């Protein structure tokens, strides 16, 4: 019995190595078959998870309802102002002979795996090279929350490095304030903001967005400031941010194609 088990394991390992190295397409086919099932399972479980977390907040529903209505009203006013600015922008570009910024192409993807490694979290999505996904493509949610960027691609699937991963860095600004810095992933600690000087204006509750001065488009929501303190050297502040990605449904995402 033991001999059979040993032989079984040796054959299984040999087959797996053979599949991984020499029959990559067969491996991808098996993965493709499994990944669509996992996308559906992930989506259903996310719904359950969101439902359970909503139940926890049921006591404060009325207060939250009033707060959200006020926030919606303020956002509608901002939206109206933005539309005017967009029209003005297009008019000025045409007047000066500058090209109009083309609309960003995006691809809807399904998440089927969230891997936890000692360097942070990686997501697996069900679209790859065949679908036009490229390395370093930015991944966001439908509501404009930054999820991460594409780190590795195969024919049928790709891996996303999330904003909480230690590999992640982007330039950010605080909304409605003249404060700029660099956001770096800090795993369970969320996101840390670097190069925020003692004189910079930042407070708990501030919304952090991308500046567009690097590979990430501008205006993507990174998170909300949760803690501000002075560092030991007295030059910079220690700022911690709760990633917005922790509050959204991660079963679907958008890949911004280059």
């Amino acid at each position: 019995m033991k001999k059979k088990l040993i032989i079984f394991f040796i054959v299984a390992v040999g087959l797996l190595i053979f599949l991984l190295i020499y029959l990559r397409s067969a491996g991808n086919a098996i993965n493709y078959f499994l990944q669509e099932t996992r996308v559906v399972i992930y989506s259903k479980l996310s719904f359950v998870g969101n439902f359970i977390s909503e139940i926890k907040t049921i006591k404060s529903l009325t207060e939250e309802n009033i707060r959200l209505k006020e926030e919606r009203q303020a956002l509608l006013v901002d939206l109206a102002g933005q539309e005017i600015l967009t029209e003005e922008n297009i008019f000025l570009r045409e007047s000066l002979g500058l090209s109009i910024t083309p609309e960003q192409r995006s691809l809807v993807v399904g998440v089927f795996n969230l891997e936890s490694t000692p360097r942070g979290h990686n997501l697996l999505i069900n679209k790859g090279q065949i679908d036009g996904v490229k390395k370093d493509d930015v991944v966001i949610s439908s509501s404009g929350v930054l999820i991460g960027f594409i780190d590795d691609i195969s024919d049928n699937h790709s891996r996303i490095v999330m904003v909480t991963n230690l590999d992640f860095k982007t330039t950010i600004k605080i909304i409605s304030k003249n404060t700029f810095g660099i956001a770096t992933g800090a795993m369970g600690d969320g996101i840390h903001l670097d190069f925020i000087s003692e004189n910079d204006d930042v407070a708990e509750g501030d919304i952090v967005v991308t500046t567009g001065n690097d590979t990430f488009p501008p205006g993507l929501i990174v998170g909300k400031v949760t803690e501000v303190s002075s560092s030991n050297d007295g030059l910079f502040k220690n700022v911690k941010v709760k990633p917005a990605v922790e509050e959204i449904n991660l079963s679907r995402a958008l890949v911004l194609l280059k």
Partner: protein
Amino acid sequence: MIRFFIFILILFLENLILPASIGPSQLLVTTIFVSSLLVYGNGWRTLLYQVIPFILITEFFTGENFGHLLTPFGLTGIIYIMINKFIDLNQDLKQGSRSLSNLIPCILILIVFNYIYSGLFILFNTSYELSTSWHEFTIFFKSSSLSLASWSVLISILFQYVLKKK
């Protein structure tokens, strides 16, 4: 065979069920389970016939490149086996005692094993830059201590009282 099925269940739990239900959190359940196989196993034989295949399956399931998890884990396993040959860390575990005092050394061994694995994983993924690796390891250490300890306790209890051969 039962260990294989538990491993598959843990793989789904860590990569699909828990993240979808509770969101992203620091879990190393699969590596803790596989390292438990080594701690409660027979050294080189367990490493070759159980640990390596399970880690390869994990790599395939999570879309990692070949050897990405196997290299740091295999190296940690070899270090553990070498140390075990001199100090005989898991002598009491093999003798079959099911007392609580037998559980604590196992939990500590698992925690240390997984921290060494994590340290090597970070080192190999930061192009062997020691200062960057150390900085990242301190962040990992702060954010994962509770989760690592909790799962080590649970998996030790599973091995000590459920999966242990009588």
